Structures are given as structure tokens and as C-alpha cells.
């Protein structure tokens, strides 16, 4: 076909890159499918053409012969299924705790994480009440509005990739590894992203663009459509069986958690989700005896990775629904029951780390106050019944991770911050400029934060997990401090009196005789950390900070249709001391709105092994009319002592409590319990009919 340059398959990629597998936890994902296609939508061939329309038409003429193989889609089935997604497990070696899996065969378990705190079996034997419930979440997708895109230009032993990545340093590392080149021969450039939410972390389309450019000997641009994003990365579906042992006074004395994470066909960062989220699965409560088993499983779905909360919203959905059921069955007010069991500073979390600067109770109180929890509540009447509920969740920071920064003060007194944190709407550029401004006493208008470019901006682990304000904030603070110290030394050298407030340009002129020179400060930041014991999961220092978020919901249920109206949504978080209060509030608000979509409408529907709704036409994200009638967002007065200017991460905390708060409010309104997301009108109506003893037929 005229205009078509190449048609490329996995075998062609193998000729230029003999081991064309990538991934942060496992080297399991081929750049193009080799031998076996593991999920629907997996790329098997590429057409390179001068024009995307030609490429699209040509791609439609490719005929692929598939030999149909049995598949497994459910995470619980995957644990025992005869269908094995990967013949052999190939840990990347990046994570020390995965090395024991190398070469393991005939299993779909990419990671098993176990935590033992106290003696859960004894607690259950001693308990007055025992509760057991199972909750499930569905597969969803980030749908960043700027679909993933990468332009690669590989020539003369040098690769330059322009990419919509959240993690330029990791992409450089991984492409350099695939090419067998030093990292200095690989350059990743990015700019402001049109949303990310975790979709654009680690390698997405960059390895493909790089391989294609290597083959074609010219620049290649790979730009996904919205549909193709659904096949690229998703949020883990999950199943969570949770059991509690409660004594006669309503104290939770033991909790057992079994969590199965549906990681899809390629592990991506799923094993990290399994472990890092896993250790908080028992909830923000002070429970002496906890047992957690958390499994990352391969299935034949599109890969699942990080999505705004790294698995936490799935866990909070289960443990806060469960906690609410217990309170109701024991006849205790849901807030009072939570407060009776809540985790407090100075007490060990189940992982064995003593909680510090974690204001769980204040966050819960903040929601209760805004909802006037102790005042009478209008429960509605007739076919419109009202209820209210809360949910409280928390998250540990991904640890230990490193951020590096360079701060350069120019001779005219302006300043440039070089860091690889990617601004995708969370206003990290603003936060970094504010921090440099504060340390150097340079007005913010004179500070520029450079777009990430791995030839220019130093290493950063990635922009994910609400880690940037804390980690990169510290790196920028320290680098600015380094520059400030050098400026002080220079002032002393040129004979300015100590504490002189002479303008910076004058200082440079005194030193260099004209407007010349630059003062450069730099720093690496890595927090303290103790790795967990493999058998018990225990660590004395599992995280540098805790993120805490709670939501209160007031809902109205139409008992004739199951239709749900969110009358009010209150979101309160502990984000330490905000660097920028307005940005923090909009992050909390935006996170809650996003979680509202995952709670009520968003669902990747799979039938006969195919995704039926990979488009915004059939996959419903929140619009104006999905907003709660009223929404309030806030944060409590708090200080993160080890954080930069008392701050900690804020990008995900608003998601935590939303889903269970709504399910708990529905239970309060009409006495039915929804245990699987999304909470559609149909699900509520089915539950109502079930309760009336008139169940509807299954589809």
C-alpha cells in the first residue's frame, strides 16, 4: 500500500532486541506479542506509515491466525487454575523481595505477601462475636484525556524519546537496559501531561516507539487512541475476604484479611500494589492480632497497575464496609465504633511501625462535625429514603525512594529548579517553586521549574503515589539550601557584612566583575526505611508518612428504581501542613470525584473474553450531572514533622473513603448491603428485591 514503510511483528523486534521484555517488577511484557497473546487488545503487529490514516487502513488488512487457548479472567480462580498465564516467572531484580520467584513455574502468583501481627487464631477463639464478609471491585481505567504518546528518535547509538510519561528516569533506565547502552545514551523528555493518575508510570508506549525507530532508522511516533488505552493499563479488580473477632465491649481484637489482586497478563507494578497496600488491609484500627495474606495474580485481562491510591481504595471499600456492618449488628453508632478502635499516634500499626503524625481521629471527627453527625437526620419517606455513612482510609508512602534536584541561581537573581517531577495537573511545579522561593528568599515570579529532560534534570524515582511534595520537596529544599549556603560564602568572600541584604545581582557583580556566573546547589533525598521481614511482614519503619482520608456521604435511594442521589459528600484529609492550600483542596475534590466514578458508573465489561465498552460512549466517567448536590472538601490542622515545611502527599487521600461511605449510607437508608462495585441503580434495585423476598432473575 502506498505510504506504508514497514509492517512489524514481535519476531522483527527480536532481531534488533534479543530479549524484548520489559516491566518494573517482572521482565514479562514483550514489546509486541511473542508466541502467545495473553490478553485481548494486546498489540501483535505494527504498521509504520507516513500518515496515521494510511497506517490505520493498512492495519485493518492484517489477518492474524490465532490458535484459541483456554483463559482465566477471575483473580480467585487464577490462584488454583490449570491455565497458566506465564510459563516461567522472570522477576526484574529491581525489588529484592521478588528474587525468590525467579524461574518459578506453573503458578499465576506473581507475589504473595504475608503479615502476622500478634496471634489472630487465638483472638478468634477468644472472641465474643465473629464476622466474615467478602467484597469485590471491578476493573476500571484511568482514561487520562491526553492519550499516551511517545516519539522516539534512535540513531548514532543515541536514543531520544519524547514521551507523556510520569517517570522519565525509570523509562531511561528501562530503555537503556533493553538497548544495552549506558543511561547517558538515552534521553527522555517530557512536559506537562494531560492527566496521568498512574496510567503513565513505568514503561507504556516508549519501548515500542524505541524499537520501531531502531528498525525503521527514522523517528517514529506512537500515539494511542482512547480505546487503546483500555488495553494498556487498568486498575486492579480485587476480591477481599475479611474476618473480624470482636470482644463483648465492641473492641476488635483480631482481623484476618485475604486479598486477591487481579493483575492481568503483565505484572506492571501490581506486585508493589499487593505488598504496599497489603500491609494496611486491616484498616486504620488498633488491632492487636492481625493476619494478612495478599496475592498478586496473573490473569488474561489487560495489565493492572497503579491508579490513584495504589490499591488502597479497593481495600478501604472492603474494610470500611465490613466495619460498618459490625457496628450496625452490634448496635453501636458507626462513628463511635470506629473511634473506639481507631489507631492513634504512638501505637503500632499492624506492620509493626509506630504511628507518628497520623491524625486518624481528627480526620474522622472532621467529617462527623461537617455532617452534623450528632444531630437528627431526615431519613426521608415513602419511596425516597435517605441515609448517611462514612469511610476512613489510609496509605503508607512507597518507600524507600529517591529524589534528586538541582537549583541554580542566576547572576540577575533569578533561579532555575531542575527536577524530574512531572506536572500533570497536580501543580508540582508550583509547589517546587514555592519551596525554592521560601528557602532562597527569591520571589516566585523569578523562579522557573524546568520540564523533565533526563539529560538535564537529575534522577527521580517517579511522579506517583503522592510522593513528590514530600520527596522532591525535600530534595528541592536541600538543593536550595545548598545554593543559599554558597551564596552566603560568596558574600563573605567579597567582603559583604554578615546578614547583608544586598541584592543578588550586586553580589554576582562583586564576585565576577559583571553579570556572570551561576551558583548551583544540589541534593539527593531518601527517607529512612526498614525493609519488612519476609515471613511476618513486620517492619519498624515501613513508611516516612501516613496519608489519611475520610468521606461522609448522605444519599437518597428511590426504592422503586434503585436510583441513587448523592445529596452530600464531605471529604476531609490529613495532608500535614499544605504548601499551597488551594491546590490541596482541588486535589482532594478531584480525587473524590474520580473515585465517585469508580464507585457508581465505571466498569470495564468483559464478555466472552472481549472488552465490550472501551470508549467514553460506553464507559461512563463523571460529568457535571454526576456531581453530588453539595460537596465539601477540607483538611485538618496538622504538621508532618519530618516533611518539607510540615507537608506530606495529598493527591490520593481524597479517594479513600468515598466508596464505602456511599455503600454504608445506602445500608442506612434502605437496609441493603452492596458488596461489589460499581454501585449501579440495578445493583441497588436487585438488593432491594432480594430483601423483599422477590429476587430478580440473573441476566
Amino acid at each position, binding site marked *: 500500500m502506498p505510504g506504508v514503510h514497514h509492517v512489524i511483528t514481535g519476531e522483527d523486534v527480536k532481531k534488533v532486541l534479543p530479549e524484548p521484555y520489559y516491566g518494573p517488577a517482572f521482565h514479562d511484557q514483550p514489546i509486541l506479542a511473542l508466541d502467545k497473546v495473553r490478553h485481548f487488545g494486546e498489540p501483535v503487529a505494527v504498521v509504520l506509515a507516513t500518515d496515521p490514516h494510511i497506517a490505520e487502513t493498512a492495519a485493518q488488512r492484517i489477518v492474524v491466525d490465532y490458535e484459541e487457548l483456554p483463559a482465566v479472567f477471575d483473580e480467585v480462580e487464577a490462584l488454583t487454575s490449570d491455565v497458566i498465564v506465564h510459563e516461567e516467572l522472570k522477576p526484574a531484580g529491581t525489588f529484592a523481595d521478588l528474587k525468590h520467584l525467579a524461574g518459578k513455574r506453573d503458578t499465576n502468583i506473581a507475589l504473595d505477601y504475608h503479615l502476622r501481627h500478634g496471634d489472630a487464631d487465638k483472638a478468634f477463639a477468644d472472641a465474643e462475636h465473629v464476622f466474615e464478609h467478602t467484597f469485590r471491585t471491578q476493573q476500571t481505567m484511568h482514561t487520562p*484525556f491526553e492519550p499516551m504518546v511517545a516519539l522516539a528518535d534512535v540513531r548514532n547509538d543515541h536514543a531520544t524519546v519524547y514521551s507523556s510519561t510520569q517517570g522519565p528516569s525509570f523509562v531511561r533506565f528501562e530503555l537503556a537496559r533493553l538497548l544495552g547502552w549506558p543511561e547517558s545514551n538515552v534521553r527522555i523528555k517530557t512536559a506537562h501531561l494531560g492527566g496521568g493518575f498512574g496510567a503513565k508510570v513505568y514503561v507504556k508506549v516508549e519501548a515500542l516507539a524505541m524499537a520501531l525507530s531502531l528498525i525503521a532508522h527514522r523517528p517514529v511516533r506512537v500515539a494511542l487512541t482512547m480505546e487503546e488505552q483500555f488495553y494498556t493499563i487498568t486498575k486492579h479488580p480485587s476480591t477481599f475476604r475479611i474476618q473480624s473477632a470482636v470482644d463483648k465491649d465492641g473492641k476488635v481484637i483480631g482481623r484476618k484479611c485475604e486479598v486477591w489482586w487481579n493483575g492481568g497478563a503483565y505484572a506492571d507494578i501490581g506486585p508493589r500494589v499487593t505488598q504496599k497496600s497489603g500491609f494496611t488491609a486491616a484498616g486504620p484500627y488498633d488491632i492487636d492480632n492481625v493476619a494478612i495474606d495478599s496475592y498478586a495474580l496473573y490473569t488474561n485481562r489487560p495489565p493492572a497497575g497503579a491508579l490513584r491510591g495504589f490499591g488502597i481504595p479497593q481495600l478501604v471499600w472492603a474494610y470500611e464496609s465490613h466495619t460498618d456492618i459490625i457496628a450496625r449488628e452490634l448496635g453501636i453508632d458507626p462513628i463511635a465504633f470506629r473511634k473506639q478502635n481507631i489507631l492513634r499516634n504512638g501505637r503500632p500499626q499492624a506492620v509493626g511501625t509506630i504511628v507518628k503524625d497520623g491524625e486518624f481521629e481528627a480526620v474522622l471527627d472532621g467529617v462527623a462535625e461537617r455532617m452534623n453527625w450528632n444531630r437528627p437526620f431526615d431519613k426521608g419517606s415513602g419511596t425516597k429514603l435517605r441515609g448517611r455513612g462514612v469511610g476512613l482510609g489510609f496509605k503508607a508512602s512507597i518507600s524507600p525512594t529517591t529524589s534528586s534536584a538541582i537549583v541554580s541561581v542566576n547572576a540577575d537573581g533569578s533561579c532555575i529548579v531542575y527536577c524530574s517531577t512531572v506536572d500533570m495537573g497536580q501543580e508540582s511545579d508550583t509547589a517546587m517553586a514555592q519551596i525554592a522561593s521560601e528557602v532562597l528568599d527569591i520571589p516566585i515570579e523569578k523562579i522557573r521549574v524546568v520540564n523533565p529532560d533526563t539529560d538535564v534534570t537529575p534522577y527521580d524515582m517517579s511522579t506517583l503515589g503522592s510522593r513528590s511534595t514530600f520527596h522532591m520537596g525535600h530534595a528541592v529544599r536541600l538543593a536550595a539550601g545548598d545554593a543559599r549556603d554558597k551564596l552566603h560564602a560568596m558574600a563573605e568572600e567579597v567582603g559583604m557584612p554578615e546578614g547583608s541584604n544586598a541584592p543578588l545581582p550586586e553580589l554576582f557583580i562583586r564576585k565576577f566583575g559583571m553579570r556572570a556566573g551561576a551558583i548551583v546547589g544540589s541534593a539527593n533525598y531518601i527517607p529512612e526505611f526498614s525493609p519488612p521481614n519476609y515471613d511476618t511482614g513486620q517492619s519498624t519503619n515501613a513508611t516516612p508518612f501516613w496519608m489519611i482520608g475520610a468521606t461522609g456521604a448522605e444519599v437518597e435511594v428511590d426504592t422503586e428504581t434503585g436510583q441513587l442521589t448523592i445529596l452530600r459528600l464531605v471529604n476531609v484529609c490529613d495532608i500535614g501542613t499544605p504548601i499551597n492550600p488551594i491546590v490541596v483542596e482541588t486535589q482532594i475534590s478531584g*480525587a473524590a470525584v474520580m473515585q465517585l466514578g469508580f464507585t457508581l458508573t465505571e466498569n470495564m465489561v468483559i464478555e466472552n473474553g472481549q472488552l465490550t465498552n472501551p470508549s467514553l460512549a460506553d464507559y461512563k466517567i463523571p460529568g457535571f450531572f454526576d456531581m453530588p448536590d453539595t460537596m465539601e472538601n477540607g483538611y485538618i490542622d496538622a504538621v508532618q514533622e519530618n516533611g518539607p515545611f510540615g507537608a506530606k502527599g495529598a493527591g490520593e487521600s481524597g479517594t479513600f473513603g468515598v466508596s464505602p461511605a456511599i455503600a454504608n449510607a445506602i445500608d442506612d437508608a434502605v437496609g441493603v448491603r452492596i458488596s461489589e462495585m460499581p454501585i449501579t441503580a440495578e445493583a441497588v434495585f436487585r438488593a432491594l428485591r432480594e430483601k423483599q423476598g422477590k429476587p430478580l432473575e440473573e441476566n
Partner: protein
Amino acid sequence: MGGQKKTIGFTLNGRRVAADIGVHQNLTEVLQEEFGLFGARESCGQGLCGCCTVLVNGIAVTSCLSLAAFADGADITTIEGIADGETLSAEQDAFIETGALQCGYCTPGFILMTKQLLDENPDPDDDAIMHYLSGNLCRCGAYPEILKAVKLAAQKRKAG
């Protein structure tokens, strides 16, 4: 494709322009490739998100679903054309002042729809705003701030 070409002429942000386009090309592509205007951008590709909104003869359209060939002779305004030199429009100012954007990818579409709304109805209430903007989606969920921005823009236009 390699296929049929057509030369079209139209007014783009107040300036007469011409372009040789493929007859299959949509307006978003032509604005980006021929004129370097990236304010209208394709996201869903189905006319559902509003990220590709432009004004054609004063009417907001989803440019990813509009064949560029039909722009022949039209008067087209994009987000790049609504400021008066260095002076931003009331809608642009209002979105900035209220922080009604996060990643900003959807923002040009929202601003152009807001402009059209306020042209038709200078004093819309919340319901009218939500209804009018319900064809635009924001994945960052900045809807509460966008509502404030539209109201502020209405005030600014009255004052201005």
C-alpha cells in the same frame, strides 16, 4: 490518505488562511498540522468529551468529528483566538482566577462553551450552566471550580 486533496480557504482567528488538505482529514488534525494550533485536541475521538471544541461561524463544534473540507469559507475561532492581544478574555481570566483546571487538557473546550453560553444567556443559574456544559468532560474532576469560573466570567462580562 495519499488520496484526494482539496484546497480550502477560511477565516482562522480573524485572519484569512488557505490550506491543502486531505478530504478525509478532520478539523482537529488540520488545525494542528497546518497551523500549529494545539488548543483543540482529540481525546475520546467520538465527540463526547469536548476537548476538541472550536467555534465554526460562532457555533461550538467538536472538531474531531468535523471534516476539514466543510470548513471551506467558514469563520473559525479557536482558544488561541479569543484573547485580545495580550488581554485574556473574561472567560479565560475567570478560569485562571478560580483555579478551574488541573491538567488543562479539557480547558479550551470548557472556555469556548462558556463563551457561547454567556453569549446566549448572560446570567445563567447553576442548572443552566451544568446543562450547557454537560457535553464537556473533565477527568481531573474540576467541576465545582468550573461552575465558579462560569459565574465569575458572567460577572466579569457584565462589569467589562
